[in-house]
């Protein structure tokens, strides 16, 4: 069960998805089996505190994301790099939206990293969605999951 702090994260993700791509996503209490061909994208931030956000999603969702963002048909033939770029940009925008809207007064400017994408193994998905900080979401039939991790004061 995700904890209460996931609500602003979910709101930032849904707002970014809808505005960039017209994709609707809803939080779910389901614990789905690992989707095929998973990708994980992560972004780090640093200010008075530091942390990161991770998003796990299947390749098929990344294709839909890229196609919608570019105004193409959902079955458009897109290079994997284009789909991964769309995932990176979604998380970049989600992170900026979350940190701008969280109402936390910070003394230091916020620095955000360039998002990174990697393959995610099925067993990693299972562990990921079991974490209390992870929110599973249904994005137009695709299972995706997102987690916000704050490390405490930055070094």
């Amino acid at each position, binding site marked *: 069960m995700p904890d209460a702090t996931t609500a602003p994260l979910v709101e930032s993700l849904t*707002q*970014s998805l809808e*505005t*960039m791509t017209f994709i609707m996503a809803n939080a779910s209490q389901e614990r789905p089996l690992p989707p095929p061909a998973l990708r994980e994208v992560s972004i780090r931030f640093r200010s008075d505190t530091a942390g990161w956000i991770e998003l796990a999603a299947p390749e098929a969702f990344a294709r839909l994301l*890229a196609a919608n*963002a*570019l*105004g193409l048909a959902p079955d458009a033939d897109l290079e994997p790099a*284009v789909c991964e*770029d*769309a995932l*990176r*940009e979604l998380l*970049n*925008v989600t*992170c*900026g*939206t*979350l*940190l*701008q809207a969280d109402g936390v007064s910070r003394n230091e*400017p*916020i620095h*955000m990293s*360039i998002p990174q994408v990697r393959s995610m193994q099925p067993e990693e998905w299972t562990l990921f969605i079991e974490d209390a900080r992870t929110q599973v979401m249904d994005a137009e039939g695709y299972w995706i999951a997102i987690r916000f991790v704050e490390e405490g004061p930055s070094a």
Partner: protein
Amino acid sequence: MPCTVLIVDDSSTTRMMIRRTIQVAGLPVDRCLEASDGQNALDLLAAEPVDLVLADLNMPRMSGVEMTRRIRSAPANRQVPIVIVSADPNLSFLHLLEKEGIQGYVRKPFTPEGIRNAVARLLETVHA
């Protein structure tokens, strides 16, 4: 008079979204150039003049702020309008950007109207 716009963002998705928005908006833009970071943008600007720059802040190799400083340091580009299109969460940073010579700010996730309005407003000043 048709204009040339330079779109600077490390995300190819965002560059294409902005390009498509400009193309369908009926704006007086006949060319959209693209650069994937600040250094790439400076190289393009050295080769040909543009009428407007739309740039991200957080990019590899050279940030949007550093790119703006360098554009402004070149006499030929001192007057080129620059609009930042970014997810940067530092709202207090905006007045500093204005000091760097930035004329507009569009927050990501942007709407087509946000891009269209910013581009239209600044192209009017170019033609004035």
